[in-house]
């Protein structure tokens, strides 16, 4: 807060912004998502973001912020602009990335600007942010945040999101970071803008600003009763202000617009089909592109013959290094041209195949080695990356003595869990529309990282960053699967040779095959419990699937928790919730076994070993709604419970299943998920996320698995890769635990992580069969008695 007086009170021209010296801003260049040397995993930086491993090849800036204030307002229109200067924490995600390459229409902005807002002379409020909308509903929740602090109705506000020419630099939209960071940033910038409005009114009326109050898009004089609209105050103004911090924000208890179930602000555009996703972008003279794919992962191009494709009228065929593709006036002609290309490939040997899915072990059998029916677990454990305990890709937490804890245990349980690769399968596949004009490349694409895609294009085409513009239309979902810019680079490569705009839309088969996957993995747990149910030891090893949510929230004196990075046989990367889903599945399944070993109710066992009050509260909320301990399962039915903490969100899920005694078919009958993420910004959006996350969790939990062999994906169609449908979904109840006293955390991911273990635990309660693989039930039925 010490910086406040140096900047907050100061009115700056835009040109002056670059001169601001900020105390407390982290000037260390932020190198993307580099790995913590300490082994501790900080918020928002997860080791399974493998697609970020390589450092970009560039490291430069393009000089300072040269845009004069006059030009700035010429572009934006007259009015009032407020710039928010990110402080150290937020600077790592938005704004202050050492190089500061956010910009406005090709001009550089000061490094630390993380968001800005403009009030025009019509009263229209335009907010600029690098975050993107892909169904998680932040266009609405961020609009609410601005409306709340600026004291205007949501309908006056529009958000410019993810346009690299118009918004400040931002690391990307992932890790459930928008609500804890950008929501806060926008509240701050809006709060300052409100103060500016009051200040301008005070000047206009020549009165003390203290007697003025802003409300409903107006400033009112409490003494005289007169009022003036923001639109009027913004007229003929070219007023700009930069702030680091500002006056206290409106506390959640006083929210009137934030905290409300505001419907999707542009919902009508979606029910009428008007919204243009990337595949819907049309440019004059645009061609349709197709890319030639290798027959298997790792296959190298030996030779290619383009002549038949090139002979087709209107077709442009490109061969550049390993890239082969075509562009044509129609998608059908592009398909035919691609089919006419003759290519020879060299396919590598020794590709592993995967585990083919679910497995069951009964309580008495040795669980460890039989948990996988394929060779994935063995492959991964044989391909652990070397590099020392503190090196990249390894994290280690250790306290006490696990050996002593295990030796002193009354009950000891060791088990191995296996995790399949799964696909994100967003309904909008990867797509891009690329256009070169006057040496500048403009690309529309669906991605979670507009600036990351821009960097990929800068690198691929050796361009200065102000010659590349990436725009992200609100996207047909991503689920962690669109961190990269393959389609953008491919479309741009084709457009370069075609000398015309090119649209490239990946087929479903391409999306299933060439997008990256949620990592598969193996998890080994050894644990011990004392006669009274106290955990005595907890040893947890995750091979390859990731380190998110790897820690245990339970009190254990002796613990060793390690993530082991492995060479993956498939291209892998982020997925909604990251490895928290796998790690919670293993941990909460194991906790359930330990409870039964200790002869305790699974919820009582968790309480016995849990001090975290917020987690205890969500367990209580879910259990209460579910009537855990009060209701009794019918014959052939079982109840299960699981929970955890991840990305600032606290979750507990209860499930009821029934198992048909004859067919052994499992049905999930009811799910209750309680979730607490601090002060709720939009209860309707939050319920939608909880619902959607649970539905998505059914897929990875019960039946989704990528099947692969010899570098080929065997089930790269919806007909073979089953995703949850209407008929898979039981009654799902979301319970919101609204903590207005705690800053809001994100909610797009964590509500997913309790479902699989809750169902697995319910199946165990019904049958005594423990399922230790994700997915648990590819066939829908238990295979063993």
């Amino acid at each position, binding site marked *: 807060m010490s910086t406040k007086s140096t900047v907050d009170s100061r009115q700056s021209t835009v040109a002056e912004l670059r001169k601001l010296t900020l105390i407390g801003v982290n000037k260390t260049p932020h190198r993307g998502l580099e790995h913590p040397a300490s082994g501790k995993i900080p918020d928002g930086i997860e080791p399974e973001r493998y697609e970020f491993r390589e450092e970009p090849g560039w490291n430069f800036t393009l000089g300072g912020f040269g845009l004069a204030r006059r030009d700035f307002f010429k572009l934006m229109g007259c009015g009032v602009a407020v710039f928010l200067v990110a402080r150290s924490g937020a600077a790592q995600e938005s704004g202050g990335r050492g190089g500061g390459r956010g910009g406005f229409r090709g001009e550089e902005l000061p490094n630390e600007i993380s968001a800005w807002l403009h009030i025009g002379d019509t009263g229209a409020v335009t907010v600029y942010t690098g975050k993107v909308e892909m169904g998680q509903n932040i266009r609405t929740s961020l609009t609410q945040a601005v409306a709340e602090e600026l004291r205007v109705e949501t309908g006056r506000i529009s958000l410019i999101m993810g346009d690299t020419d118009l918004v400040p630099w931002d690391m990307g939209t992932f890790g459930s970071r928008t609500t804890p960071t950008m929501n806060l940033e926008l509240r701050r910038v809006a709060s300052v803008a409100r103060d500016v409005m009051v200040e301008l009114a005070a000047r206009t009326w020549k009165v003390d600003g203290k007697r003025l109050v802003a409300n409903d898009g107006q400033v009112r004089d409490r003494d005289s009763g007169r009022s003036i609209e923001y639109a009027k105050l913004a007229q003929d103004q070219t007023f700009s202000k930069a702030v680091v911090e500002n006056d206290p924000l409106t506390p959640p208890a006083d929210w009137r617009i934030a905290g409300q179930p505001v419907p999707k602000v542009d919902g009508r555009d979606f029910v009428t089909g008007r919204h243009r996703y990337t595949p819907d972008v049309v440019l004059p003279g645009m061609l349709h592109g197709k890319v030639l794919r290798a027959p298997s992962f790792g296959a190298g191009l030996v030779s290619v013959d383009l002549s038949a494709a090139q002979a087709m009228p209107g077709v442009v065929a490109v061969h550049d290094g390993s890239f082969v593709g075509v562009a044509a006036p129609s998608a059908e002609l592009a398909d035919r041209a691609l089919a006419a290309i003759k290519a020879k490939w060299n396919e590598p040997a020794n590709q592993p195949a995967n585990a083919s899915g679910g497995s069951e072990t009964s309580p008495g059998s040795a669980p460890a080695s039989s948990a996988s029916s394929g060779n994935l677990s063995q492959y991964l454990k044989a391909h652990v990356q070397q590099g020392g305990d503190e090196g990249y890709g390894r994290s280690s937490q250790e306290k006490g003595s696990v050996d002593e804890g295990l030796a002193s245990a009354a009950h000891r349980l060791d088990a191995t869990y296996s995790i399949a690769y799964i696909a994100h399968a967003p309904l909008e596949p990867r797509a891009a529309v690329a256009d070169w004009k006057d040496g500048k490349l403009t690309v529309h694409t669906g991605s979670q990282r507009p600036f990351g895609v821009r960097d990929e294009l800068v690198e691929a085409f050796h361009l200065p960053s102000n010659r590349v513009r990436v725009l992200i239309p609100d996207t047909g979902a991503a689920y962690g699967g669109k961190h990269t810019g393959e389609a953008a680079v491919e479309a741009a490569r084709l457009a370069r040779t075609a000398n015309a705009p090119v649209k490239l839309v990946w087929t479903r088969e391409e999306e299933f095959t060439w997008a990256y996957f949620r990592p598969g993995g193996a998890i080994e747990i050894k644990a011990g419990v004392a006669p009274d149910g106290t955990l005595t030891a907890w040893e947890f090893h995750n091979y390859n699937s990731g380190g998110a949510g790897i820690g245990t929230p339970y009190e254990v004196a002796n613990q060793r928790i390690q993530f082991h990075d492995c060479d993956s046989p498939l291209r892998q990367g982020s997925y909604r919730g990251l490895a928290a889903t796998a790690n919670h599945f293993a941990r909460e399944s194991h906790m359930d076994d330990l409870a039964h070993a200790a002869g305790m109710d699974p919820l009582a066992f968790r309480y016995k070993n849990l001090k975290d009050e917020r987690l205890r509260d969500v367990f209580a909320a879910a259990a209460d709604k579910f009537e855990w301990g009060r209701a009794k399962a019918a014959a052939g039915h079982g109840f299960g419970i699981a929970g955890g903490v991840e990305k600032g969100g606290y979750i507990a899920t209860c499930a009821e299943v029934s198992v048909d005694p004859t067919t052994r078919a499992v049905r999930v009958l009811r799910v209750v998920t309680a979730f607490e993420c601090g002060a709720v910004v939009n209860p309707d959006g939050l319920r939608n996320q909880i619902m*959607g996350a649970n539905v998505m969790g059914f897929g990875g939990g019960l039946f989704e698995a990528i099947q692969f062999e010899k570098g080929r994906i065997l089930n790269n169609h919806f007909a073979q890769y089953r995703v949850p*449908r209407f008929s898979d979904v039981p009654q799902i109840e979301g319970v919101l635990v609204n903590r207005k006293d705690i800053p809001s955390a994100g909610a797009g991911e964590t509500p997913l992580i309790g479902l699989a273990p809750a169902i697995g635990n319910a199946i165990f309660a019904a049958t005594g069969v423990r399922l230790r693989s994700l997915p648990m039930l590819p066939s829908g039925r238990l295979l063993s008695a």
Partner: protein
Amino acid sequence: MNRLKIRVNGAERTLHVEPDTTLLSALRDQLGLIGTKYGCGEGQCGACTVLIDGKARRSCLTPAASVGAAEITTIEGLESKGEGDANGRLHPVQQAFLDEGAFQCAYCTSGMILAAVSFLKENPHPSNAEIVRGMNGNICRCGTYPRIVAAVRRAASGEAGKAGKVQG
């Protein structure tokens, strides 16, 4: 390349088609009706659903040359098509989706709405189980199925546009 006349959203339109031109690409690329989406190209996801003579059909599997004189309705044609509604009024199913917030990314929404319109024509007063069966060919990867069921129920009950949610 053959010239072909088809009827879309109440008007006659001219296409230039090859035998492999799908109705989906003709609608999107030639007529600019981008509300109909590509999701899989294999009839598995329902994002490309349009009405052909009032019945839900997969436009990705329908050759453009095969539709003949049939009336095709896309999401763009639904808005003004509500019986007795003036131009720009949402169809009750569209309104019900808005009322229930029955979407997240909404890429599936056009197909869902048209599938629901077709389904409700055949079964105007469905049970929840019938809605699930009737809509099961359409994928919402965001998982808003319970809200979509609620929206279809709301449209069926004539409650579209009225306050209050069916589904929490």
